[in-house]
């Protein structure tokens, strides 16, 4: 294995793999190393909290590429290896097993780690997070004997895990610190919908709950309950903690990169360090669909797009970041697809009937379509995404009329698309 590469990519998630495959597809002839801390061939993360957790899908079905592909590709895949430092002057990264790789360009796609509660008992067996294949494989081992689970955090990861556990017949209590589900990422209408959905599927959801620790059960060193601030113990033989992600930025921070809630990058994913890009969950960028606000997106779309942009910049075909953000979440039979960024909306319109399980929440700002949350309405999502891209202005009263498609709504809305 050489000790120097034209491109070193750190992290083999959606962002890193997108960078590498873009380079390969575009005929890049330099040398490439793809380094990841995990031992598995690169895999997609979304199934971890869905099909993989319930046992409906095995990892072979969600590898980015087969083993054959990686054997044939002109890429050195370096697995089970953590980068411990970046020397931005020598253009060199060091690994936890004392190797060093020189780079001409470095793409930092290291993602992040699941945030853990720092409370007494957090080290007990039976307490899990959902972020890596290895971690979810351990979780699945514990799921087998579990009867009562507590899910800490009513965000997407926690709720998808809840749906998976309910499908497996396990009792679930969701403990959320705030006063509604998905509070940071969506409107109360969607929060209420998911609360009803989970309640209807037998999950118990509690709000405004502060956690002070974990207690041992009958088995030594294994969790038996979640201790709340008021002393109540919620019994649990399995705990899933889904309270967010800590972006993996330490090595770049030490190397002198600008870091503010992630590694700050420009619209080509370039960091403040020469020849160093940051992409995906760990990258903080100005998003054109959030009025240029600096933010960090944890999504497949953002990761894949930023990986591609870094690769294109390296091969001299630079493009700016300009795609509409999109996301999805599957819970029970609800398939929610989201487009745009709803933060800062000044008006919302509900299209369809939440009680019927098919509806879209449409968000506006100053009359302009900002974002959509589409529950079991894929047509709204696809049409709406295109309209967001065009900065369309829609007549809110027409939007509420489900007999019209969103394209038809736009055609009948007086104001033309602007911007």
């Amino acid at each position, binding site marked *: 294995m050489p000790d120097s590469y034209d491109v070193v990519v750190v992290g083999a998630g959606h962002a890193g793999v997108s960078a590498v*495959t873009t380079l390969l597809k575009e005929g890049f002839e330099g040398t490439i190393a793809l380094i990841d801390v995990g031992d598995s061939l690169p895999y997609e993360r979304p199934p971890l909290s869905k099909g993989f957790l319930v046992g409906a899908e095995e990892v072979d079905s969600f590898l980015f590429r087969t083993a054959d592909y990686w054997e044939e590709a002109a890429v050195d895949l370096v697995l089970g290896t953590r980068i411990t430092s970046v020397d931005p002057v020598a253009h060199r990264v060091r690994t936890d097993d004392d190797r060093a790789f020189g780079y001409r360009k470095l793409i930092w796609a290291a993602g992040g780690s699941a945030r853990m509660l720092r409370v007494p008992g957090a080290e007990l067996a039976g307490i899990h997070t959902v972020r890596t294949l290895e971690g979810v494989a351990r979780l699945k081992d514990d799921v087998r004997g579990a009867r009562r689970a507590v899910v800490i955090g009513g965000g997407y990861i926690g709720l998808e895990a809840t749906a998976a556990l309910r499908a497996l017949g396990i009792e679930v209590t969701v403990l959320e610190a705030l006063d509604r589900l998905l509070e940071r990422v969506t409107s109360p209408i969607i929060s209420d919908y998911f609360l009803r959905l989970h309640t209807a599927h037998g999950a118990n959801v509690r709000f405004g709950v502060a956690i002070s620790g974990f207690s041992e059960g009958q088995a030594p060193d294994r969790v038996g309950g979640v201790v709340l601030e008021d002393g109540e113990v919620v019994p649990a033989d399995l705990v899933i903690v889904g309270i967010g992600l800590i972006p993996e930025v330490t090595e770049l921070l030490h190397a002198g990169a600008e870091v503010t809630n992630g590694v700050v990058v420009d619209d080509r994913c370039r960091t403040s360090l020469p020849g160093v890009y940051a992409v995906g969950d760990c990258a903080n960028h100005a998003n054109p669909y959030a009025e240029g606000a600096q933010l960090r997106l944890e999504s497949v779309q953002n990761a894949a797009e930023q990986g591609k942009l870094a690769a294109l910049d390296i091969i001299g075909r630079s493009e700016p970041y300009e795609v509409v953000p999109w996301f999805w979440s599957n819970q029970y039979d609800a398939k929610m697809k989201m487009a745009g960024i709803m933060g800062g909306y000044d008006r919302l319109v509900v299209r369809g009937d939440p009680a019927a399980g098919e509806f879209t929440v449409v968000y506006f700002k100053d009359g302009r379509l900002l974002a959509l949350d589409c529950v079991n309405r894929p047509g709204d999502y696809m049409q709406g995404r295109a309209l967001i891209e065009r900065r369309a202005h829609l007549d809110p009263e027409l939007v509420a009329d489900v007999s019209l498609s969103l*394209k038809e709504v736009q055609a009948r809305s007086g104001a033309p698309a602007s911007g």
Partner: protein
Amino acid sequence: MPTITFRFADGNADREVAFEPGQSVMQAAVNKDIPGVIGECGGEMSCATCHVYVEDAWTERVRSMSSAEEEIVEVVENPRPESRLGCQIPLTEAQDGIVVTVPEA
């Protein structure tokens, strides 16, 4: 191994590649870095980056469209009556020799 042929609406040369039974058209394409098939969402019908045209001779010999796929295919770029999402077409030995066309970007 069975094979699938990708044609390209922009006139590039056909690519005939092997697939593993159980892969979808999208997965078969992605694993060979077929240009124009990205499969960003992994088969969730959330990105429409695996849009292909299934050749007429094969339309009856692949899984039919769900209503969700229909709603998405209506809105893809360069739609045709034979438009499909590659992620929704599983491949088995019965599809050995299938031909699909990748739309123009």
